[in-house]
């Protein structure tokens, strides 16, 4: 049954856009975008244990890279996505170089500063010809190529889905191999990891770079999907939203990124109807509640339930098979 879960999920993700309105498809595209960003943050905060309070900044850098490339250089939208990833990989490694030598708490401080000050940098008058200042940059949603009978929203959904599948497979591959074990070892015991021959600082800054790359790619896709890139969409609050999403979704799990993305896309919208302050309050209360009672988030809870159900299934199976044996004394194995 477990082997079927992933293909079933993919098939339903492919069918979904034909069943719902274009607006819902747009929302689902944003869920995909958030899932990619959250996976990036999870590589850093969950697997590598480095706290980032400023990942919104890399999302913003990715979005602006895509917007400027499309608006000023007329680069096709699909080419801007990997380019935004490369730019953010560079920015992440640069920022991660000193971070590799820092204790966790100081990294939290440095990323906090980055997240808070970036909107101001984007508004700066000397970069205004590129970033559009407070006005931001307006983009158009791409049309489906080759005359495919898809609406713009549907096409962008499939495009994002494809990017997401590639990136998720990449992360899965990275994490289960040598690199992934080194990253987790550094999180759990940096001294032991260094003693085992792992270059701690190098892996830390590399993880920071890859994490920023994922988030930057998400930013580029998000900018294209929303059709607008402006400094106030990337306030410090975005970084906190991402952090909250990954904590609620489940740290150190790949599926946690998807749960977290669904959470930050839909829950605040519902809460926002009650009051402007409600989404923030929900984020705050949930952050503390998850740390207290559910440290592994939704993904952890889901895995836990699944494990119990399998265990339950095994015991009932064992019981029925032992009955079977009693009835047929001639057989030597069930």
């Amino acid at each position: 049954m477990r082997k079927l879960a992933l293909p079933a999920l993919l098939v339903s993700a492919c069918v979904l856009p034909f069943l719902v309105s274009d607006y819902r498809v747009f929302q689902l595209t944003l869920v995909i975008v958030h899932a990619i960003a959250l996976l990036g943050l999870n590589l850093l905060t969950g697997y590598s244990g480095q706290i980032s309070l400023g990942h919104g900044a890399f999302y913003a850098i990715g979005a602006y890279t895509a917007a400027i490339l499309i608006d000023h250089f007329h680069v096709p939208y699909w080419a801007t996505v990997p380019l935004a990833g490369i730019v953010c990989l560079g920015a992440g490694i640069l920022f991660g170089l000193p971070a590799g030598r820092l204790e966790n708490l100081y990294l939290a401080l440095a990323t906090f500063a980055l997240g808070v000050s970036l909107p101001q940098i984007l508004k700066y008058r000397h970069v205004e010809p590129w970033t559009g200042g407070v006005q931001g940059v307006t983009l158009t949603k791409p049309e489906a190529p080759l005359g495919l009978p898809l609406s713009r929203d549907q096409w962008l959904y499939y495009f994002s889905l494809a990017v997401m599948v590639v990136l998720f497979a990449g992360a899965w591959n990275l994490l289960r191999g040598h690199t992934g074990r080194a990253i987790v070892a550094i999180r759990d015991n940096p001294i032991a990891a260094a003693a085992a021959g792992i270059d701690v600082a190098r892996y830390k800054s590399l993880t920071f770079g890859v994490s920023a790359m994922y988030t930057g790619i998400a930013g580029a896709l998000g900018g294209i999907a929303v059709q607008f890139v402006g400094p106030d969409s990337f306030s410090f609050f975005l970084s906190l939203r991402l952090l909250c999403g990954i904590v609620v979704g489940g740290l150190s799990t790949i599926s946690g990124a998807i749960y977290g993305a669904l959470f930050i896309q839909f829950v605040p919208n519902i809460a926002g109807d009650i009051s402007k302050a409600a989404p923030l309050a929900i984020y705050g209360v949930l952050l503390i509640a998850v740390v207290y009672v559910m440290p592994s988030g939704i993904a952890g809870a889901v895995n836990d339930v699944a494990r119990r159900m399998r265990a339950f299934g095994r015991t009932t199976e064992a019981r029925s098979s032992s009955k079977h044996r009693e009835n047929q004394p001639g057989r030597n194995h069930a």
Partner: protein
Amino acid sequence: METLLHQILSGLAAGGIYGSLALALVMIFQATHLVNFAQGELAMCSTYLAWSLIHAGCPYWLAFLATVGISFVAGALIERCVIRPVENKPALAVVLVFIGLMLILNSVAGWIFGYTVKTFPSPFPDHPLFGNTYIGNHELGIIAVMALMVALLYLFFRYTTLGLAMRAAAVNPDSSRLCGIRVGRMLALGWGLAAALGAVAGMLIAPIVFLDPSMMSGVLLYAFAAALLGGIDSPGGAVVGGFLVGVVENVMGAYVIGTELKLTVALILIVGVLVMRPAGLFGKVVVTRV
């Protein structure tokens, strides 16, 4: 020249605020080795409390003292109820609780008082004293109140038994516990003092930056820069760092990069200090034994 002097003096006044908030951060850092990301929002809530008291007809200084007292109790209570359960968890868990606290305080303030910007009165007279034109009375008042607070704190930590017990609990909790010091209580006390300090800082900066739920985000960033610059485990360093950051921020803002990039100064300071001298100007260099 006169404008430069003016910029430096108002930088010192702002620096006083950053310094006091940095001092609050350092006090909690010394005891727990954690940086309280909710310190700014705590100060913001205290300032709203003072604003409501003043609007209810309370005289300024009475409201001031009441706010400081209530903030002290609230700070201690938060430590007991919210932070205590995660005390021994990894740094990530505690940072997440701080961030959660920050979001809750911010939204509660927004919920109760709304997001419109409010003015906050200054307790100091409007007309200039002794005919000086370099510095406003409120800015002068900030520096005076700050100096008084730092002096009081110094006397408290240096010459009282309770102050000694708090320092002992911060330096070596286990030995202190064996000497009969109630370490948990000292931690709560430290949080209370930090919250009270933050309340003073909030009430003094509110006439300048005005009152709204996000008034402290920039101030907190400067306070981080100040604490790091001075050395995050050095209270004296936090005060000096505060004044330095205030002056640098003001002079750079006026002459070099313009006011639009002021927050970036803090970013560069923070990253610069962390890269070049992580212990800050007056901090201890930490050596880890492997």
